[in-house]
């Protein structure tokens, strides 16, 4: 009787396998500016062979890194570089470029008390950029692959964006990233319109983030459905 009651309860119960995260995992957000270097063809934005660089500040951290950073005592910066234009597509005011794999992305921590404050300066690379963005401790870094940038030169609302894959492979905080999640991160963001905040020599405001797709969600099944799998 007890066994029957137990089986009945199990048959009626909804069995949920352990729940995994359904949403993506956020690593960090960033904001900065971008520029070309080398800029061998000043008349063409991101001509083949030219270099794309962006640098700036990390604006927030996700749960993997948040326990190990301190925005009060430290300044956190980023630098994406070694991105050489591989292909160039332009049509009717729309531009898309791809880059040679791999580029490099790095994130740094620098003491506000004893380090050197990062400064954009003008006409990068200059005495301050990128040097003052990369002179702290390297907390995380990795190769950037399949980086794509597009820009719409619409005169009324110019705007662009970028995406790329980041595989983490260095840095003092690398141990905080699960080994099974060192690859597969997505760098994505906005390359905004030119405006008074963009220092001379830089091209666009950059605002973006790094995240990784979440796990496939578990489905709820009944005991009867589970048994049917093994008949």
């Amino acid at each position, binding site marked *: 009787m007890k066994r029957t009651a137990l089986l009945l309860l199990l048959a009626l119960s909804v069995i949920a396998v352990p729940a995994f995260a359904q949403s993506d995992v956020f690593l960090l957000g960033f904001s900065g500016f971008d520029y070309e270097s080398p800029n061998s063809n000043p008349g063409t934005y991101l001509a083949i062979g030219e270099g794309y660089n962006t640098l700036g500040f990390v604006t927030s951290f996700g749960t993997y890194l948040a326990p190990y950073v301190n925005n009060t005592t430290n300044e956190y910066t980023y630098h994406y570089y070694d991105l050489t234009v591989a292909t160039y597509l332009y*049509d009717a005011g729309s531009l898309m470029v791809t880059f040679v794999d791999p580029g490099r992305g790095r994130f740094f921590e620098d003491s506000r008390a004893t380090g050197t404050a990062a400064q954009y300066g003008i006409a990068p690379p200059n005495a301050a950029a990128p040097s003052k963005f990369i002179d702290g401790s390297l907390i995380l870094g990795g190769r950037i692959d399949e980086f794509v940038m597009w820009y719409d030169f619409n005169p009324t609302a110019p705007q662009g964006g970028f995406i790329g894959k980041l595989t983490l492979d260095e840095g003092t905080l690398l141990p905080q990233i699960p080994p099974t999640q060192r690859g597969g991160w997505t760098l994505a963001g*906005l390359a905004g319109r030119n405006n008074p905040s963009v220092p001379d020599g830089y091209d666009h405001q950059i605002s973006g983030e790094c995240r990784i797709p979440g796990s496939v969600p578990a489905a709820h099944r009944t005991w009867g459905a589970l048994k049917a799998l093994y008949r």
Partner: protein
Amino acid sequence: MKSKIWVAAAMGLLATALSAPVATAQCGNYPGMMIKFDGDAWAYETSYNTTTLMSTAGSQLTVVGTVSVFCFPFADLNPADPATEYTFIWDGLTSQGTASVPYLVTGMRYTTNYTGGNFRIYAGSPRNAPSISPPALPAPGVVPNAFVDGTMILSGGMGPLAVVVTRVPTGGYSGTFRADYWNTGGTLYNRVGDATSLLAGAWCVVPPISPPPIGTCSLAAGWSAHPNGKWDMPSTVLALPSTWGKIKTMYR
């Protein structure tokens, strides 16, 4: 003696007026980024097809989120304050329908304009808004409730919100949004004034196919996208950030 005291008092007043909190370095040059949001912001709408990326004309879009960075003239606000949560909502956004056109031959571009929007930013306690990942919708009592509780510190209108999602020829997705905004109210309105400025950022759509292409964002059921971006400072923010040291150099 009296003249010396008067000068000292005047210099003190001058220092007070001009020594607005210096924007932290991450805020960049003036004028620039004013308010930023990163991982904790999500969008949902009443009639949107996540597979075709098409928003039906008349669909109502809502965006909720949590602020991650404050810059001048809000640099005194701490988005990490354990006792105060700064959240926002964009609502009243009516879709004009999505237009899709080929992009650079093999790609596709999806453009949706949403009109009539408003935004409100709140300072609330306790910290109760979802973070890291949003709950499945509907989430009564949580969405949008937890994002619109507390004191409304800033509010305003939004020009057409243009959301552009591009499937690039390499197969990935890159989305952006932009809208002109202007402030109209809130307890901290006097810090910014009513000039128009830019609200812009990235727009990460829910994957239209499986496995998820690069540049898409997997979210709980009911959500359509994850935006991250910023309000830029309007020109009516008149006071320039400065320090007492900088003021002194002016008189050397």
